[in-house]
């Protein structure tokens, strides 16, 4: 719009937007705030700053519970499944983007459709399979599952990024005497790197927050943060402040990553149906 809105209108919209924004963000804000209160104050006072600030909860959670184990599990599982998915997904997306055939379209749609499978549909066999092969409650097992669960999105996103690379540039490389290895190493990868990074970003976020397989296929050893937090659903004694501290630490990494990944979110989760 070329015309400037009047200051009055701008004030109105700004107040409304900020008001609603703060309201929506409030639960997160409150959680972070509560993590600095004592347990007694956490349940009693709805104070915004007039309380005794303390870091005790953070020390309690990190020292008295296996927090770091679960944090490490989350990291390993998210990064592991992301790397594996990229390893498998990059060649597939490369082939579909640069050597499409009549079947490519169907293939891509089929891959996306596997994401639509409700996890409950395969809960039983997977649980039994994992139990019988010793993969239950292992990081390896979870990495494998999450790789497959997110592979369709990874392939899809890489595909869209690769398609944006003009095919002629790769042809030029070929004419310039590059064999396949050189083509991929010197031309494709540098141009595809931003797209690959974006895909990894989104995948790490999705894997970190995954809350079905991580809850059902793990126990004390391999449980990531999603499951660890879930253990606060049947707590003993006062726990609000500790829950806040644990939650804040659990969501902080992905909240920060998420702020950078809005565009990737749209691209990855709407499967291109919205531009």
């Amino acid at each position, binding site marked *: 719009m070329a015309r400037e809105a009047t200051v009055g209108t701008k004030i109105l919209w700004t107040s409304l937007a900020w008001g609603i924004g703060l309201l929506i963000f409030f639960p997160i804000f409150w959680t972070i705030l509560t993590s600095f209160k004592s347990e007694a104050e956490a349940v009693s006072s709805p104070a915004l700053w007039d309380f005794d600030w303390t870091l005790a909860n953070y020390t309690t959670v990190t020292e008295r519970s296996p927090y770091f184990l679960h944090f490490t599990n989350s990291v390993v599982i998210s990064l592991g499944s992301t790397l594996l998915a990229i390893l498998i997904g990059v060649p597939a997306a490369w082939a579909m983007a640069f050597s499409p055939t009549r079947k490519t379209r169907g293939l891509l749609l089929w891959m996306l459709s596997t994401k639509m499978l409700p996890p409950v549909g395969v809960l039983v066999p997977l649980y039994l399979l994992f139990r019988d092969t010793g993969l239950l409650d292992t990081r390896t097992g979870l990495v494998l599952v999450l790789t497959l669960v997110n592979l369709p999105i990874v392939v899809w996103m890489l595909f869209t990024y690769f398609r944006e690379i003009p095919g*002629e540039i790769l*042809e*030029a490389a070929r004419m*310039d*005497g590059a064999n396949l290895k050189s083509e991929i190493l*010197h031309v494709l990868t540098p141009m595809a790197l931003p797209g690959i990074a974006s895909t990894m970003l989104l995948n790490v976020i999705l894997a970190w927050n995954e809350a079905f397989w991580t809850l059902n296929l793990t126990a004390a050893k391999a449980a990531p943060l999603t499951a660890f937090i879930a253990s606060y659903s049947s707590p003993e004694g006062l726990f609000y402040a500790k829950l806040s501290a644990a939650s804040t630490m659990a969501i902080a990494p992905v909240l920060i990553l998420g702020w950078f990944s809005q565009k990737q979110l749209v691209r990855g989760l709407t499967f291109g149906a919205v531009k």
Partner: protein
Amino acid sequence: MGSITLKGVTKRFDDVEVIPPLDLTIRDGEFVVFVGPSGCGKSTLLRLIAGLEDVSGGTMELDGRDVTALPPARRGLAMVFQSYALYPHMSVRKNIAFPLKMAGMDQAAIDAKVDGAAKVLNLADYIDRRPGQLSGGQRQRVAIGRAIVREPSAFLFDEPLSNLDAALRGNMRLEIAELHQSLATTMVYVTHDQIEAMTMADRIVVLNKGVIEQVGSPLELYRSPKSLFVAGFIGSPTMNLLTGDAAAKQGAHTIGIRPEHLALSMDAGEWSGVVTVSEHLGSDTFLHVNVDGLGTMTARADGEFPARHGDRIGLTPDPARLHRFDAAGAAMTA
């Protein structure tokens, strides 16, 4: 060194034969232009020569060597793409050096060659910039530079000037023509612009739906088009084509007369008509005339010719320049 021979080359995409068996010989050092309307197969033919597409049948020879099954990297050809296809993450220097790096040349030799190309093409000023920071014409030069350093046996150009504005296009046309003079290497050039074709080519190949309509020098095509298609394609504005009685009088199905071969007068002529639109270009004037009994024709007049909209003028075709075509569209020579 750079002769290209196509024998019975065909190309099929799925079940559609876009190029029926085609024979063509390009001589070493020639500047050959493939020209034709969209979809005529000129780009496809170029890509077949480059090796970016496989032929569905027939053979391709470079300097007598059968290259039909060879990948592009081994054919010794260089291509300049329509979109220039420069590597966006590399500087101009690295772009031009890339083919040499692929060939395994040592760094000192590479630098020497790159500097040489930069001097020839006047790129030294921006040799360390990236393609994104360059204008269209500059990118064009880098693309040519990248092709030159390889010292290929032939250059392939795929509509390289289509993305440039008119003024730049004129300049680049000259530069490419000069390049051909100095390098004396075979050049195969694809364009849909017949002015580029006419001004740059030693020989022109006119393509229509995958079939070669005619091969010849620009003047040959202009003076003796072998078919209606070529007659209507070469020459701007296009040749006036008339059917019916006027053609029958000459013993043909269709006759053609170019706008520049109509003698005009404010008085009478063999034909008579009313001017509907007159386009003044300064040096020439193009008149669109509604000729009695024959329909609309275009005529070229000297810039000083005084006819305006609504005037009645006389037109007389030069009988020596009248073209006759039979019912199948082929030129009648007798």
